[in-house]
């Protein structure tokens, strides 16, 4: 009795000029019907390529399987013919991808794309195909299936596109569904819905699901069994309970320890001095309109936003995409111009200030950016990137250099970084450089716009610790933007929740988590995957064993 999917001793070779010879080595993994197996790892672990290898979707010939077998019900897919693979794809084994916008053909309707699955595997008439397609769209709970069939991908939201992809994948009742980070690009509330959908569909159809992810919270919520990958090797496997509560391998233990608890940090005394006050901030975007454009669209990115920040405090602004949290951050740093309201830093209202008037105040409020790969000028050396701030404000070259070296030490980088270029550093290191740059002008307020969202979870923990240290050492006041409630819980003293431009609720972290008043806040908290896991006592217990 052969297993549904049995991967044995799999080796996936990379082209000669790559950093390592194998993307995946000596991999053993199996999947049974009616279970969800999560393959979890950080970037570069090889998890995505494993998924593609099963379906024969590796970018041959540069990347290929050169050893091992992938047995699907006894048949080796690694050596199967192209025709056979084509037969299996879509009907016996299906796949859904991470980015629903690019994964769907932008010039074909959803209906046509679903139709294709039927046309290439089954002999149904046009009418039958259409009614089956409608049924599928209803199953995945798309609001208006008739309309969705005729719609183009860009006319649906991210969550709806992903549902359409799930419909396509489950159209012919496949035995295996491979999901390659399908919820990573979605908002947390949408993610919760899609995960629920996948679990339901899996239970109804009895499909075996191979779910790739980097998010342990997701693993905790849906997986029956887990495989942890590091640099192409499977370092640990087991049931969810075993791996998450009692990890054996040091890498797994480290990863799990790095996942922030969904429990608020201990409260710290709040200073009475208000260092930044935002009153009724308003920023609206208008587009379209005009003679032939019909009515224009108005988006209230920041709608009557009021916040305050005490000295030494970290205020978190939490929200999903489109909530306006980034807009508010950028207005505060005066990268955007808000049209109404006040931004009081001390006694000065920064909002109406022109560029020249703003300049002397710039040093007091600085920003750390989200994307470590875009926030440093690729053609400028690190030393110059950090030193140019102080030099613009009158420091001599020598003073600026000294300060830069000090900062490099504070953020944990070697002096030799001074003469290097950004591309020589990893994402986490670049983020440290970004922090050093922000600190160079000795600001009072630091605005951090999703500073760890683009980083792997283990690096994330390091950067969050660094920010903590710096904040204590320099008595900085911080505004921390994030969409991740776990991170917010670890780092913020108070949290403001935003939705569609409005501040829904503000309060100390502990109170917000224990007794959220607004419905939306409750929804947000409920949607966080893996609640009840990754508590610090568990981690301590596991390491003691």
């Amino acid at each position: 009795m052969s297993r549904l999917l049995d991967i044995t001793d799999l080796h996936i070779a990379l082209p000669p000029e790559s950093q390592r010879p194998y993307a995946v080595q000596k991999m053993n993994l199996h999947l049974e019907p009616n279970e969800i197996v999560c393959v979890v790892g950080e970037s570069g672990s090889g998890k995505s390529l494993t998924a593609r290898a099963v379906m024969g979707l590796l970018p041959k010939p540069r990347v290929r399987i050169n050893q091992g077998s992938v047995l699907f019900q006894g048949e080796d897919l690694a050596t199967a013919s192209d025709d056979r693979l084509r037969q299996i794809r879509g009907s016996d084994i299906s796949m859904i991808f991470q980015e629903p916008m690019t994964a769907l053909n932008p010039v074909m309707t959803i209906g046509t794309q679903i139709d294709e699955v039927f046309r290439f595997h089954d002999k149904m008439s046009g009418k039958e195909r259409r009614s089956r397609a409608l049924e599928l769209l209803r199953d995945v709970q798309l609001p208006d299936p008739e309309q969705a069939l005729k719609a183009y991908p860009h006319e649906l939201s991210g969550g709806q596109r992903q549902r359409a992809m799930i419909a396509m994948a489950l159209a012919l009742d496949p035995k295996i569904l491979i999901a390659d980070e399908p919820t990573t690009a979605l908002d947390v509330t949408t993610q919760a819905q899609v995960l629920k959908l996948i679990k339901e569909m899996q239970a109804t159809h009895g499909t075996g699901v191979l779910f790739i992810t980097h998010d342990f919270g997701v693993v905790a919520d849906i997986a029956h069994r887990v495989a942890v990958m590091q640099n192409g090797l499977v370092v640990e496997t087991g049931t969810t309970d075993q791996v998450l509560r009692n990890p054996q391998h040091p890498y797994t233990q480290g990863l799990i320890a790095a996942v922030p608890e969904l429990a608020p940090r201990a409260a710290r005394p709040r200073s009475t001095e208000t260092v930044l006050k935002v009153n009724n901030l308003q920023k609206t975007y208008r587009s379209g309109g005009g003679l032939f454009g019909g009515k224009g669209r108005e988006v209230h990115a920041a709608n009557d936003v009021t916040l305050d920040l005490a000295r030494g405090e970290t205020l978190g602004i939490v929200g999903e995409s489109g909530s306006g949290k980034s807009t508010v951050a950028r207005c505060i740093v005066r990268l955007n111009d808000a049209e109404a309201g006040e931004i009081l830093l001390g006694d000065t209202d920064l909002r109406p200030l022109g560029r020249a008037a703003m300049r002397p105040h710039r040093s007091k409020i600085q920003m750390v950016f989200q994307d470590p790969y875009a926030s440093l000028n690729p053609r400028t050396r690190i030393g110059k990137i950090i030193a140019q701030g102080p030099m613009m404000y009158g420091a001599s070259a020598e003073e600026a250099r000294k300060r830069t070296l000090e900062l490099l030490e504070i953020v944990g980088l070697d002096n030799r970084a001074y003469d290097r270029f950004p591309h020589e550093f990893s994402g986490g290191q670049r983020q440290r450089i970004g922090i050093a740059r922000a600190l160079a002008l000795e600001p009072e307020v630091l605005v951090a716009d999703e500073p760890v969202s683009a980083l792997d979870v283990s690096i994330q923990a390091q950067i969050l610790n660094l920010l903590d240290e710096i904040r204590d050492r320099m008595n900085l006041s911080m505004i921390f933007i994030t969409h991740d409630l776990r991170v917010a819980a670890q780092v913020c003293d108070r949290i403001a929740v935003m939705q569609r431009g409005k501040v829904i609720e503000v309060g100390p972290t502990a109170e917000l988590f224990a007794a959220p008043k607004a419905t939306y806040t409750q929804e947000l908290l409920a949607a966080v995957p893996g609640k009840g896991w990754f508590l610090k006592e568990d981690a301590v217990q596991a390491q003691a064993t």
Partner: protein
Amino acid sequence: MTFWKLFARNRGAVVGLIILLLITFMAATASLFFPEDPFSLAGQPMSPPGENGYLLGSDSLGRDVAAGIAHGAKTSLLIGLLATLVAVFVGIVMGALAGYYGGVIDNLLMRTTEMFQTIPSFIFAILLVAIMKPSIESIVIAIAVVSWPAVARLVRGEFLSLRNREFVQACHTLGMADIRIMLGEILPNCLSPVIVIGSLMVATAILIESGLAFLGLGDPNSMSWGFQIGAGRTLLRSAWWVCTFPGIAILLTVLAINLVGEGINDALNPRLRERT
């Protein structure tokens, strides 16, 4: 040094570079090998290639075709380079301002480039040269005028996308002045596509110049390949060589420049080469 290594991986580009160097050499030493004025009507007319001491033959007025080609190389390369430099400079300035500031300036630039796109550029060039009376200067100006919009559009696009990049935003938070941001932060990061388009533009400039010369709008004091072909039109039946060889010269030069341009592109954007 890595630039040259990457460049050399493209064999076509290397061939192009060699051809280009040869042609430049020929242009530079034209007076050495062909000391007489190429317009002089000294020798035996209608002489086929290889006879009477003419390497590539002579035309109906006794002008040496080979001498014409050697001296014509000077004209074409000179005009090609100058016109491109002017066009690239103007294009960068206009494109940078439009892409960085947006708004009214951008609108104005976009309308202007649309207007230039609507006027057939070759006819516009003819117009300009005729008005300014044909000369090296007027031809350079005319070609530059019809060529800068392409550069401006490219630079505008780059500035538009780079001005919202986070490292530029970081410069704003430092209070950096606009000019410094444009010149020091953004411009160095968009030079690669500009260099590529510039090198290909030299080829286009040479084609326009020879077209103008063919129609009789070339500088009357400078020998040009286009002029030779234009003068040899009526001799197609009897002296085919008068038209053929200068044409081959144009073909080789433009081809060489295109190959070098592609080599530069490959060297500056190495990731695109993975598409084998």
